[in-house]
């Protein structure tokens, strides 16, 4: 399991901002946890800390009980294979100078997981899984649509077969039909590989469709945590209620 143990993060520049305060969360394999909150509440900071891109000001991140900050280089390298992240379709999600094929294989090559033949086979499988047309392989990122890019980004990350995936608003900028296909992709992959998924989103409908447990974050603190159905049926914290109300979802209109 991947655990956040009382993680806090304070940024000094350009101003002193307390991004996270005493956040504890445990991600287990095969389970999806939804993390909801408004923009700027610290979700992305937590995501980055979870994959080791940022160090917490206090608290620890533990993989199977081992503090990632205290890991030896080799162990840490392995950590990066087992825990991965998908960002919210940033502008330059892929190196504009590399053809898609190279971007897809980057992780696998970095960790030296496959030989040439293995690579070819793996690419074919990966494309099938993510419903991408092989004809995009020699193309460059600027030739692809936003939806295709996000799929490539996910394929790239999944190629390492991580045990834990942190998805930071992976579909917020996408249309509904694209959103559903990408979320289904993540869900199927999770079922197939028993991956633990931390799904960061501000969309409650997505949370209800995908997550078994929900954590609600307000201004860097987790204010409520529990099984999805309970949170929806009986939210306890006023902030949770506010978020539910704002989500504009018509009550009673939910089909699993």
């Amino acid at each position, binding site marked *: 399991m991947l655990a956040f143990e009382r993680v806090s993060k304070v940024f000094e520049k350009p101003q002193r901002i307390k991004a996270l305060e005493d956040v504890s969360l445990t991600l287990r394999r095969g389970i999806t946890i939804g993390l909801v909150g408004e923009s700027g509440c610290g979700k992305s900071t937590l995501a980055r800390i979870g994959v080791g891109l940022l160090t917490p000001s206090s608290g620890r991140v533990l993989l199977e009980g081992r503090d990632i900050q205290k890991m030896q280089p080799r162990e840490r390298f392995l950590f*990066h*294979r087992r825990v*991965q992240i998908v960002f919210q379709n940033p*502008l330059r999600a*892929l*190196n*504009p100078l590399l053809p898609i094929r190279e971007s897809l294989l980057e992780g696998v090559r*970095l960790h030296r997981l496959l030989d040439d033949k293995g690579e070819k086979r793996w690419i074919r499988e990966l494309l099938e899984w993510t419903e991408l047309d092989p004809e995009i392989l020699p193309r460059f990122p*600027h030739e692809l649509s936003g939806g295709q890019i996000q799929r490539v980004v996910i394929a790239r990350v999944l190629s390492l077969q991580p045990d834990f995936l942190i998805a930071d608003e992976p579909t917020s900028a996408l249309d509904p039909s694209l959103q559903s296909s990408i979320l289904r992709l993540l869900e199927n992959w999770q079922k197939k590989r028993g991956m633990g998924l931390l799904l960061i989103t501000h969309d409650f409908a997505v949370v209800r469709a995908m997550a078994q447990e929900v954590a609600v974050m307000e201004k860097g603190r987790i204010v409520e945590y529990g099984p999805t159905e309970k949170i929806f049926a009986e939210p306890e914290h006023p902030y949770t209620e506010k978020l539910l109300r704002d989500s504009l979802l018509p009550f009673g209109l939910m089909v699993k």
Partner: protein
Amino acid sequence: MRKNGLMITGLVLLVVIGGASLLAPFLSPFDPLEVRLNNRFAPPFQRPHLLGTDALGRDVLSRLLYGGRLSLLLAVLSTLITLSVGMLLGMLAGYFGGWVDGVVSFVVNTFLGIPDVVFTLALLGVLRPGFGTLLLALNAGSWVGLARVARGEVLFLRESGFVEGARAMGAGAWYCLLKHILPNLFPTMGVLGSLRFGGFVLELAALSYLGIGVQPPFPDWAVMLNDARPYLFTHPHLFIFPALIITVVILGANCLGEGLRDALDVRFQRGIGES
């Protein structure tokens, strides 16, 4: 690849003139240094001296062909040195931040406070004239501007999804720098480098014209300009031809730089966009 007229024009001009300079020993009809006092001031567009002769009877065409060798070589070397140093320091400062950035930024800001011209002239005044001196004088301060631009680009690239993604996969600093950041710097640096090249040619020409750059009797274009000064109105062709060549070289460099910038703009743009 879109047809990019500007870039092609620039390339063609530079390649032609560069090639001609390189092949001067084979193309030159006469010895550029050979003095023929019985044939001074021959007018241009007549055989055998197609561009005439100068005050000492030396063939102008031959001198033009040889004239660029030193300045172009110096300009090319300077561009390479400036780019290398600028990019390296910019990358280190931008990627690692911290004290590395502090040191580099301090040096950059110090140099930026010293006027270019003053610095160059001071160096040239103190050291003996020569190839090495010129190289040093041209480059001592010029890497600074490039380093600053490179640093800015690196700061931006460092936050890109693909760099963060690589880091999240466990990639180390050097991997990210060499595989992702450096190649993405080339486009901007290429543009700046082309423009800088033109700048170096101009700077060198100015120094040579003033007598503190390339020294006569080497048939450098700017030296020719200087030699032609007394005869500006009597034999204008002696001034016009070298001036023209220098202008064309700088024009070519600028066209190449602008053309590259246009070409790269298109490449990084998206299509029509969401509709």
